[in-house]
Protein backbone atom coordinates (compact mmCIF):
# COMPACT_ATOMS: atom_id res chain seq x y z
CA UNK A 1 0.00 0.00 0.00
CA UNK A 2 2.79 2.33 0.97
CA UNK A 3 4.62 1.47 -2.23
CA UNK A 4 1.55 2.18 -4.32
CA UNK A 5 1.20 5.62 -2.69
CA UNK A 6 4.89 6.29 -3.30
CA UNK A 7 4.51 5.38 -6.98
CA UNK A 8 1.47 7.61 -7.39
CA UNK A 9 3.36 10.46 -5.76
CA UNK A 10 6.27 9.99 -8.18
CA UNK A 11 3.92 10.07 -11.14
CA UNK A 12 2.30 13.25 -9.86
CA UNK A 13 5.69 14.94 -9.42
CA UNK A 14 6.73 13.92 -12.96
CA UNK A 15 3.51 15.24 -14.45
CA UNK A 16 3.91 18.52 -12.62
CA UNK A 17 7.46 18.94 -13.93
CA UNK A 18 6.26 18.15 -17.46
CA UNK A 19 3.49 20.75 -17.24
CA UNK A 20 5.88 23.41 -15.96
CA UNK A 21 8.23 22.59 -18.86
CA UNK A 22 5.35 22.90 -21.27
CA UNK A 23 4.52 26.33 -19.94
CA UNK A 24 8.14 27.40 -20.27
CA UNK A 25 8.26 26.24 -23.91
CA UNK A 26 4.96 27.89 -24.67
CA UNK A 27 6.31 31.13 -23.34
CA UNK A 28 8.59 31.53 -26.44
CA UNK A 29 7.03 34.10 -28.75
CA UNK A 30 7.04 33.78 -32.52
CA UNK A 31 6.30 36.73 -34.82
CA UNK A 32 5.20 36.17 -38.40
CA UNK A 33 5.64 38.84 -41.06
CA UNK A 34 4.18 37.97 -44.40
CA UNK A 35 5.64 38.60 -47.81
CA UNK A 36 4.49 37.20 -51.12
CA UNK A 37 6.77 35.59 -53.67
CA UNK A 38 5.05 34.84 -56.94
CA UNK A 39 6.56 31.88 -58.75
CA UNK A 40 5.88 31.57 -62.44
CA UNK A 41 7.17 29.23 -65.10
CA UNK A 42 9.28 30.17 -68.06
CA UNK A 43 10.43 28.13 -71.04
CA UNK A 44 13.81 26.39 -70.70
CA UNK A 45 16.77 28.33 -72.06
CA UNK A 46 18.15 25.23 -73.77
CA UNK A 47 16.62 22.12 -75.28
CA UNK A 48 18.38 18.76 -75.24
CA UNK A 49 18.51 17.07 -78.64
CA UNK A 50 19.47 13.49 -79.49
CA UNK A 51 22.98 13.26 -80.94
CA UNK A 52 24.03 11.35 -84.01
CA UNK A 53 25.54 8.39 -82.15
CA UNK A 54 23.21 7.47 -79.33
CA UNK A 55 19.46 7.70 -78.75
CA UNK A 56 18.76 10.01 -75.81
CA UNK A 57 15.66 9.90 -73.65
CA UNK A 58 14.52 13.50 -73.42
CA UNK A 59 11.85 14.92 -71.12
CA UNK A 60 8.73 16.57 -72.57
CA UNK A 61 10.05 20.07 -71.96
CA UNK A 62 13.48 19.05 -73.31
CA UNK A 63 15.27 20.30 -70.23
CA UNK A 64 16.36 16.90 -68.89
CA UNK A 65 17.70 13.84 -70.63
CA UNK A 66 19.42 10.53 -70.16
CA UNK A 67 21.80 8.87 -72.56
CA UNK A 68 23.43 5.47 -72.38
CA UNK A 69 26.70 4.62 -74.09
CA UNK A 70 27.86 1.05 -74.34
CA UNK A 71 31.27 1.03 -75.98
CA UNK A 72 33.65 1.74 -73.15
CA UNK A 73 36.58 -0.64 -73.58
CA UNK A 74 39.49 -1.59 -71.35
CA UNK A 75 42.79 0.07 -72.18
CA UNK A 76 41.29 1.85 -75.18
CA UNK A 77 39.75 5.21 -75.89
CA UNK A 78 36.18 5.42 -77.18
CA UNK A 79 35.06 8.62 -78.86
CA UNK A 80 31.45 9.54 -79.56
CA UNK A 81 31.75 12.50 -81.91
CA UNK A 82 28.05 13.30 -81.52
CA UNK A 83 27.05 11.85 -78.16
CA UNK A 84 24.42 14.49 -77.46
CA UNK A 85 23.32 17.88 -78.73
CA UNK A 86 21.49 20.88 -77.34
CA UNK A 87 19.84 23.87 -78.90
CA UNK A 88 20.17 27.23 -77.20
CA UNK A 89 16.79 28.95 -77.14
CA UNK A 90 17.91 32.13 -75.39
CA UNK A 91 21.38 33.59 -75.83
CA UNK A 92 23.42 33.65 -72.67
CA UNK A 93 26.55 32.28 -71.10
CA UNK A 94 26.81 28.53 -70.75
CA UNK A 95 29.22 26.25 -69.03
CA UNK A 96 29.37 22.49 -68.88
CA UNK A 97 29.67 20.89 -65.47
CA UNK A 98 30.35 17.34 -64.34
CA UNK A 99 28.30 17.48 -61.16
CA UNK A 100 29.07 13.97 -59.93
CA UNK A 101 30.18 10.54 -61.06
CA UNK A 102 29.03 7.20 -59.66
CA UNK A 103 31.69 4.68 -60.58
CA UNK A 104 32.01 2.17 -57.76
CA UNK A 105 34.16 -0.20 -59.85
CA UNK A 106 36.40 2.58 -61.21
CA UNK A 107 35.76 1.51 -64.80
CA UNK A 108 36.44 4.95 -66.27
CA UNK A 109 40.17 5.71 -66.41
CA UNK A 110 39.59 9.17 -67.85
CA UNK A 111 36.74 11.00 -69.54
CA UNK A 112 36.44 14.35 -71.26
CA UNK A 113 33.48 16.18 -72.81
CA UNK A 114 33.83 18.80 -75.55
CA UNK A 115 31.23 21.22 -76.90
CA UNK A 116 31.34 22.27 -80.55
CA UNK A 117 29.15 24.82 -82.27
CA UNK A 118 27.28 23.24 -85.16
CA UNK A 119 27.90 24.10 -88.78
CA UNK A 120 28.94 22.54 -92.07
CA UNK A 121 32.64 21.87 -91.47
CA UNK A 122 34.75 19.02 -90.18
CA UNK A 123 37.19 19.70 -87.39
CA UNK A 124 39.98 17.52 -86.05
CA UNK A 125 40.05 16.91 -82.32
CA UNK A 126 43.31 15.85 -80.66
CA UNK A 127 42.47 13.39 -77.92
CA UNK A 128 43.92 13.41 -74.41
CA UNK A 129 45.32 9.95 -75.05
CA UNK A 130 46.92 11.00 -78.34
CA UNK A 131 45.61 10.57 -81.84
CA UNK A 132 43.01 12.59 -83.64
CA UNK A 133 39.39 12.10 -84.58
CA UNK A 134 37.24 14.14 -86.92
CA UNK A 135 34.20 15.90 -85.54
CA UNK A 136 31.67 16.50 -88.30
CA UNK A 137 29.07 19.28 -88.76
CA UNK A 138 30.93 21.90 -86.74
CA UNK A 139 31.37 25.59 -87.45
CA UNK A 140 35.03 24.89 -88.19
CA UNK A 141 36.27 26.21 -84.86
CA UNK A 142 37.66 24.29 -81.92
CA UNK A 143 35.64 23.28 -78.88
CA UNK A 144 33.93 26.21 -77.15
CA UNK A 145 34.01 24.40 -73.80
CA UNK A 146 35.48 21.24 -72.36
CA UNK A 147 35.61 19.49 -69.02
CA UNK A 148 36.72 16.08 -67.78
CA UNK A 149 37.91 13.91 -64.94
CA UNK A 150 40.32 11.04 -64.29
CA UNK A 151 41.16 8.32 -61.81
CA UNK A 152 44.36 8.45 -59.78
CA UNK A 153 47.20 7.26 -62.00
CA UNK A 154 45.62 8.31 -65.29
CA UNK A 155 46.64 11.16 -67.57
CA UNK A 156 45.90 14.35 -65.65
CA UNK A 157 45.11 16.15 -68.90
CA UNK A 158 41.62 14.63 -68.73
CA UNK A 159 40.74 17.33 -66.20
CA UNK A 160 39.89 17.01 -62.52
CA UNK A 161 40.66 14.12 -60.18
CA UNK A 162 37.40 12.23 -59.66
CA UNK A 163 37.48 12.83 -55.93
CA UNK A 164 37.56 16.59 -56.48
CA UNK A 165 34.36 16.82 -58.54
CA UNK A 166 32.23 18.78 -59.36
CA UNK A 167 34.20 20.46 -62.11
CA UNK A 168 33.04 22.99 -64.66
CA UNK A 169 34.28 24.34 -67.95
CA UNK A 170 34.81 28.01 -68.50
CA UNK A 171 31.67 29.76 -69.69
CA UNK A 172 31.15 30.57 -73.33
CA UNK A 173 28.83 33.04 -75.02
CA UNK A 174 26.12 30.84 -76.50
CA UNK A 175 24.06 31.97 -79.43
CA UNK A 176 20.70 30.58 -80.46
CA UNK A 177 21.93 27.62 -82.43
CA UNK A 178 22.69 23.93 -81.89
CA UNK A 179 25.79 22.65 -80.15
CA UNK A 180 27.34 19.18 -80.27
CA UNK A 181 28.74 17.33 -77.27
CA UNK A 182 31.70 15.02 -78.00
CA UNK A 183 32.64 12.38 -75.45
CA UNK A 184 36.10 10.83 -75.07
CA UNK A 185 36.37 7.97 -72.57
CA UNK A 186 39.13 5.57 -71.68
CA UNK A 187 38.26 2.33 -69.92
CA UNK A 188 40.27 1.10 -66.96
CA UNK A 189 42.32 -2.01 -67.72
CA UNK A 190 40.20 -4.45 -65.72
CA UNK A 191 36.72 -3.09 -66.46
CA UNK A 192 34.09 -5.76 -67.09
CA UNK A 193 31.02 -5.87 -69.30
CA UNK A 194 28.88 -6.36 -66.19
CA UNK A 195 29.96 -3.01 -64.78
CA UNK A 196 28.68 0.48 -65.43
CA UNK A 197 29.05 4.05 -64.25
CA UNK A 198 26.83 7.12 -64.26
CA UNK A 199 27.88 10.68 -64.96
CA UNK A 200 25.68 13.55 -63.87
CA UNK A 201 26.34 16.20 -66.50
CA UNK A 202 24.89 19.68 -66.37
CA UNK A 203 24.62 22.65 -68.64
CA UNK A 204 24.54 25.83 -66.60
CA UNK A 205 22.94 28.79 -68.34
CA UNK A 206 23.24 32.30 -67.01
CA UNK A 207 22.69 35.75 -68.40
Amino acid at each position, binding site marked *: MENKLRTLLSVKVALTIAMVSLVLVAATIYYYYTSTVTVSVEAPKINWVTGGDVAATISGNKSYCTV*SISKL*QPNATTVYTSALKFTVVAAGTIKLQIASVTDSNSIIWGMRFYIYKSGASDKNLTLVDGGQVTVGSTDGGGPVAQVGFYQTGANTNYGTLIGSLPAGSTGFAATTTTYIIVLEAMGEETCQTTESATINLRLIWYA
Partner: protein
Amino acid sequence: MASAQASTYNYYTAFTECNVSAPDVIFKTGTNGTAYVISMNKTWAKVNVTGTLTETYYEYVLNITNLSNNINYTVKLEKATIDGIGRLTNFTAYFHDGTPSRQIEISNGTVTQSSGSWCSIATSATIYISIAIKVSTSGISTVDLRLHVVKGDTTSPEIVQTVTINVN
Protein backbone atom coordinates in the same frame (compact mmCIF):
# COMPACT_ATOMS: atom_id res chain seq x y z
CA MET B 1 32.89 30.97 -61.06
CA ALA B 2 30.19 32.67 -63.04
CA SER B 3 30.06 36.33 -63.93
CA ALA B 4 29.52 38.50 -60.89
CA GLN B 5 26.64 40.25 -62.69
CA ALA B 6 24.71 37.06 -63.32
CA SER B 7 21.63 36.76 -61.17
CA THR B 8 19.82 33.75 -62.55
CA TYR B 9 21.29 30.34 -63.14
CA ASN B 10 19.46 27.54 -64.89
CA TYR B 11 20.69 23.96 -64.62
CA TYR B 12 19.89 21.39 -67.27
CA THR B 13 20.83 17.82 -66.44
CA ALA B 14 21.92 14.99 -68.70
CA PHE B 15 22.55 11.69 -66.98
CA THR B 16 25.03 9.61 -68.93
CA GLU B 17 25.17 5.91 -68.24
CA CYS B 18 28.44 4.37 -69.32
CA ASN B 19 28.65 0.64 -70.02
CA VAL B 20 31.56 -1.59 -70.93
CA SER B 21 31.67 -3.70 -74.07
CA ALA B 22 34.06 -6.52 -74.88
CA PRO B 23 36.52 -5.57 -77.62
CA ASP B 24 35.78 -7.01 -81.04
CA VAL B 25 39.06 -5.98 -82.64
CA ILE B 26 42.10 -7.25 -80.78
CA PHE B 27 45.86 -7.60 -81.13
CA LYS B 28 47.69 -10.91 -81.27
CA THR B 29 51.39 -11.60 -81.48
CA GLY B 30 52.88 -11.89 -84.95
CA THR B 31 55.90 -13.88 -86.01
CA ASN B 32 58.43 -11.17 -86.91
CA GLY B 33 58.62 -9.18 -83.68
CA THR B 34 60.20 -9.78 -80.28
CA ALA B 35 59.40 -8.91 -76.66
CA TYR B 36 55.67 -8.75 -77.30
CA VAL B 37 53.61 -7.15 -74.56
CA ILE B 38 49.87 -7.36 -75.11
CA SER B 39 47.39 -6.26 -72.46
CA MET B 40 45.12 -8.91 -70.98
CA ASN B 41 42.13 -7.61 -72.92
CA LYS B 42 44.28 -7.41 -76.08
CA THR B 43 43.47 -3.79 -76.91
CA TRP B 44 46.99 -2.51 -76.31
CA ALA B 45 50.27 -3.86 -77.69
CA LYS B 46 53.99 -3.23 -77.71
CA VAL B 47 56.52 -4.98 -79.91
CA ASN B 48 60.22 -4.72 -80.75
CA VAL B 49 61.61 -5.06 -84.26
CA THR B 50 65.20 -4.98 -85.41
CA GLY B 51 66.45 -2.40 -87.86
CA THR B 52 69.52 -3.00 -90.00
CA LEU B 53 71.57 -0.98 -92.43
CA THR B 54 69.84 -2.74 -95.28
CA GLU B 55 66.13 -2.61 -96.02
CA THR B 56 64.21 -5.34 -94.17
CA TYR B 57 60.54 -6.14 -94.68
CA TYR B 58 58.73 -7.79 -91.79
CA GLU B 59 55.44 -9.16 -93.02
CA TYR B 60 53.83 -10.29 -89.76
CA VAL B 61 54.80 -7.90 -86.97
CA LEU B 62 51.39 -7.85 -85.29
CA ASN B 63 48.05 -9.51 -85.97
CA ILE B 64 44.76 -7.59 -85.84
CA THR B 65 41.75 -9.86 -85.52
CA ASN B 66 38.05 -9.13 -85.78
CA LEU B 67 36.41 -11.46 -83.26
CA SER B 68 32.89 -10.64 -84.35
CA ASN B 69 31.09 -13.07 -86.60
CA ASN B 70 28.49 -10.55 -87.73
CA ILE B 71 30.07 -7.09 -87.75
CA ASN B 72 32.61 -5.81 -90.27
CA TYR B 73 35.03 -3.20 -88.95
CA THR B 74 37.21 -0.63 -90.64
CA VAL B 75 40.56 0.38 -89.23
CA LYS B 76 43.40 2.80 -89.86
CA LEU B 77 46.72 3.61 -88.22
CA GLU B 78 47.80 7.03 -87.05
CA LYS B 79 51.11 8.28 -85.68
CA ALA B 80 50.85 9.56 -82.12
CA THR B 81 54.21 10.26 -80.47
CA ILE B 82 57.67 9.43 -81.81
CA ASP B 83 61.09 9.36 -80.24
CA GLY B 84 64.59 8.92 -81.63
CA ILE B 85 63.50 8.65 -85.25
CA GLY B 86 66.50 10.51 -86.67
CA ARG B 87 68.19 7.15 -87.37
CA LEU B 88 65.23 5.80 -89.32
CA THR B 89 66.18 5.93 -92.97
CA ASN B 90 62.93 4.17 -93.68
CA PHE B 91 60.08 3.08 -91.46
CA THR B 92 56.95 2.21 -93.37
CA ALA B 93 54.01 0.50 -91.69
CA TYR B 94 51.37 -1.28 -93.78
CA PHE B 95 48.18 -3.17 -93.25
CA HIS B 96 48.63 -6.41 -95.06
CA ASP B 97 46.03 -9.02 -95.90
CA GLY B 98 47.10 -9.72 -99.42
CA THR B 99 47.31 -6.20 -100.81
CA PRO B 100 49.39 -3.88 -98.59
CA SER B 101 47.90 -0.53 -97.56
CA ARG B 102 50.56 1.99 -96.57
CA GLN B 103 49.60 3.62 -93.29
CA ILE B 104 52.65 5.37 -91.80
CA GLU B 105 55.89 6.49 -93.40
CA ILE B 106 59.03 7.94 -91.88
CA SER B 107 61.78 8.76 -94.33
CA ASN B 108 65.28 9.95 -93.38
CA GLY B 109 64.11 10.87 -89.89
CA THR B 110 61.05 12.81 -91.02
CA VAL B 111 57.41 11.75 -90.86
CA THR B 112 56.15 11.83 -94.43
CA GLN B 113 52.81 10.09 -93.82
CA SER B 114 51.14 10.36 -90.42
CA SER B 115 47.99 8.33 -91.01
CA GLY B 116 46.57 5.84 -93.46
CA SER B 117 43.32 5.24 -95.25
CA TRP B 118 40.54 3.10 -93.79
CA CYS B 119 40.76 -0.64 -94.45
CA SER B 120 38.13 -3.21 -93.70
CA ILE B 121 38.43 -6.32 -91.58
CA ALA B 122 35.73 -8.79 -92.44
CA THR B 123 33.99 -10.84 -89.79
CA SER B 124 36.26 -13.32 -88.04
CA ALA B 125 39.19 -12.22 -90.22
CA THR B 126 42.76 -11.24 -89.38
CA ILE B 127 44.95 -8.63 -91.04
CA TYR B 128 48.58 -7.93 -90.22
CA ILE B 129 50.79 -4.95 -89.52
CA SER B 130 53.86 -5.21 -91.75
CA ILE B 131 56.87 -2.95 -91.48
CA ALA B 132 59.74 -2.09 -93.81
CA ILE B 133 62.76 -0.79 -91.88
CA LYS B 134 66.19 0.58 -92.63
CA VAL B 135 68.30 2.40 -90.07
CA SER B 136 71.43 4.53 -90.43
CA THR B 137 72.98 3.86 -87.01
CA SER B 138 72.45 1.68 -83.97
CA GLY B 139 70.12 2.87 -81.23
CA ILE B 140 66.48 2.73 -80.18
CA SER B 141 63.56 4.47 -81.87
CA THR B 142 59.99 4.45 -80.59
CA VAL B 143 56.98 4.93 -82.83
CA ASP B 144 53.76 5.19 -80.87
CA LEU B 145 50.73 4.49 -83.08
CA ARG B 146 46.98 4.55 -82.66
CA LEU B 147 44.69 2.01 -84.28
CA HIS B 148 41.33 3.64 -85.04
CA VAL B 149 38.41 1.21 -85.23
CA VAL B 150 34.88 1.93 -86.41
CA LYS B 151 31.99 -0.33 -87.20
CA GLY B 152 31.23 -0.97 -90.86
CA ASP B 153 30.63 2.23 -92.77
CA THR B 154 29.91 4.35 -89.69
CA THR B 155 32.20 7.09 -88.41
CA SER B 156 31.30 7.05 -84.73
CA PRO B 157 31.76 5.82 -82.06
CA GLU B 158 35.41 5.39 -82.75
CA ILE B 159 37.64 3.12 -80.67
CA VAL B 160 41.28 4.18 -80.43
CA GLN B 161 43.81 1.50 -79.42
CA THR B 162 47.54 1.88 -78.82
CA VAL B 163 50.39 0.10 -80.61
CA THR B 164 53.97 0.94 -79.66
CA ILE B 165 56.77 -0.22 -81.94
CA ASN B 166 60.35 -0.08 -80.72
CA VAL B 167 62.99 -0.26 -83.41
CA ASN B 168 66.28 -1.62 -82.05
